[in-house]
């Protein structure tokens, strides 16, 4: 059997949904970061798949994906650094703890 476009798209969309769901539900900031990664990766899959199936002529999507991966890595690095700082001061990484500023 050969794989069709949808066979890639649907899982990636599911990944994206899982990422959003995880972001909204998980309490641990690290877990939230992971779900963010899920979302970004599903985007990458989209780009690659679109490029591969629909527009095989150029490689715009591929390149974009490369950059996207790099950006995602950078984001994760910054986020981790900040989370560590928060941990230093708040002594935990529970997302519900950092609600000092509100209203």
């Amino acid at each position, binding site marked *: 059997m050969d794989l069709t476009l949808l066979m890639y798209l649907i899982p990636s969309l599911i990944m994206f949904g899982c990422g959003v769901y995880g*972001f*909204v539900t998980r309490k641990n900031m690290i877990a*939230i970061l992971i779900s963010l990664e899920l979302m970004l990766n599903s985007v990458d899959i989209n780009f690659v798949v679109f490029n591969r199936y629909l527009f095989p002529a150029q490689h715009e999507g591929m390149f974009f994906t490369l950059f996207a991966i790099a950006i995602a890595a950078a984001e994760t690095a910054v986020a981790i650094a900040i989370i560590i700082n928060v941990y230093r001061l708040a002594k935990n990484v529970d*997302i*519900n703890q950092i*609600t*000092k500023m*509100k*209203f």
Partner: protein
Amino acid sequence: MPLSSTIYVLAIPFFMFLFLGLVGVKMPRKITGVIGVLGMAVTTVWAYAIAFTYFFGVDQGQMSDGVRQQIVTTDWTWLSFYADKLVVKLGILLDPISAMMLVVISTVSFMVHLYSLGYMSDHDGNPEKGFQRYYADLALFTFSMLGLVVSTNIFQMFIFFEMVGVSSYLLIGFYYGQQPANHASKKAFIVTRLADLFFLIGILILSFYTKTFDFIQIMGANGHDVCNAFTSAQGLTFMGCSVTGWALTFIFIGGAGKSAMYPLHIWLPDAMEGPTPVSALIHAATMVVAGVFLVARMFPLYVLEQGAMDIICVVGAFTAFYAAAVACTQSDIKRALAFSTISQIAFMMTSLAVSSADGKLIGGHEAGLGYMASMFHLFTHAMFKALLFLCAGAIIHAVHSNENSKMHGLHKYMPITSIAFLIGCLAIAGIPPFAGFFSKDEILVACYEKGIGWGLWMSMVAGMTAFYMFRIYYLIFFWKKHEVHGEHKPKDQPWTMTVPLIVLALISCVAGFVPFGDLVTWDGAKLETHLNLPVAGASVGIALIGIGLATAMYWKENPLPDKLASMFKGLWTASYKRFYMDELYQFITHKIIFQGISKPIAWFDRTIIDGFFNLLGNVTNSASFGIRKMQSGSVQGYVSYYIIGAVLLAAITGIVILCF
């Protein structure tokens, strides 16, 4: 003397007002008083000269084939509502009545000025506080009245109506430190102002149709050819009556306010809170006759509107009776005199109203008799009413009270005053040969010609007049011995106060013989008058009956009056309380206007309207408090808003696009 110099008759008092008001306050009181009197004397002489020139002088265009013309000596465009038409001019119109009024006003005013020198001082002759202000206001009052009578157009007349109102406000409220004077002045101003409102509306309607204010343009020379605009407007009707009828009725209401016709009379009795000479001025010569003068001035229009005429007639006749009835029981001499004034003014009004203008002969008399009689009565009444009030002033000055219970038997103490007062009473009661007899006789004749009912009614009122005047006279000067309290007993007042009495008394004796019919008629033409014996006799008889009744009841102290009073208790108290008119007004003004309208409106403004705008603010605040939960501070809440927002945006747009 050239008639064009009439302007000075007005200029001098006005200048006196400014001078005394601005400079005078810095000067010693006596001097200001003297200056005021001198100024008024000059004015009087000048006015006499003008009147003489107008009536008897060499022809300056005022006579053409036996008919006195209306002469406009000055005309200054003061305020032009439209570039061309509807212009308010300040001018001077000389015709019989205005010339006559010049004489009346200046005479009485001069008497009052002179008299006040003494009256406004204590017994050592030191003028009291506010002397300068007093004379300034007197000058202003005189000026306004003079300006009123010489008005060339109805709007100028309105202007001076206002001026008269305000100067009376100032004079009645002269003792502003005392609450009664304060209230009385306020009342006088507001009531007359209310009347002036109708006057204004009348003017608006009239000018809307005639497109002019000018008397001569509206009524034509000597009121003979009324302009077509008016006559054509008579065709138009508004709510059943012709628009001109409405206009004239409204204008009459304006006059009624000044002339204290029922039910707008209530300010006049209170006006006595001012100094007595001021009351003399107001009652005799100035304010109260303004209304009569207004109707007389517009007589040619009124005769074309019988409806309006009938209204005036009814109001006048009723007022005459009402005032007389009230006057019968008053114990305050000034109030009694005030009501007698109202009654007499009502005489004039009625007489105007019963008069007719078309040329046909009625009962051997020419048309316009009532008009002439009314003017005649105005003239004579001014004289003897001024006399009566000045006497009253002298008495009050002597005994320091208005109540006749404090007086009694003053005859032997102040004989001159007593005699003068007696002359005044005889005059007003209509006993020949005193002035009142002639004028009142003419009025009665005119009334009888209108209809026997009117005649009888007015004769009855004349009888009542005689009764209450002599009642007052007896109660002041006889009835019982005067008990003297205090060391100095009452005596005749200094010359400044007695001379006016004597002069006025003399005038009251002879004024009746003035050939008024030749001088003052509605169209300037001569008017044949001859004594109508039956009417004259009847009226004299009634007067005598009234006097006799008074003599019987009040000559010597006796229980009869109290018996009668207790017999007709309700009637007596009702009349004593002036039939509760003041209470009625109190109720209307305070309970209805203030409590019923103003308070609710103020509340509505503060609560509803203001509240609404405050509500807007509060709603905004509470809204901002209500949505604060959105900013919960938790990142997950934020992103859920974010994703929901994004998805909703897409979904709604998609649905809209797909469906439409």
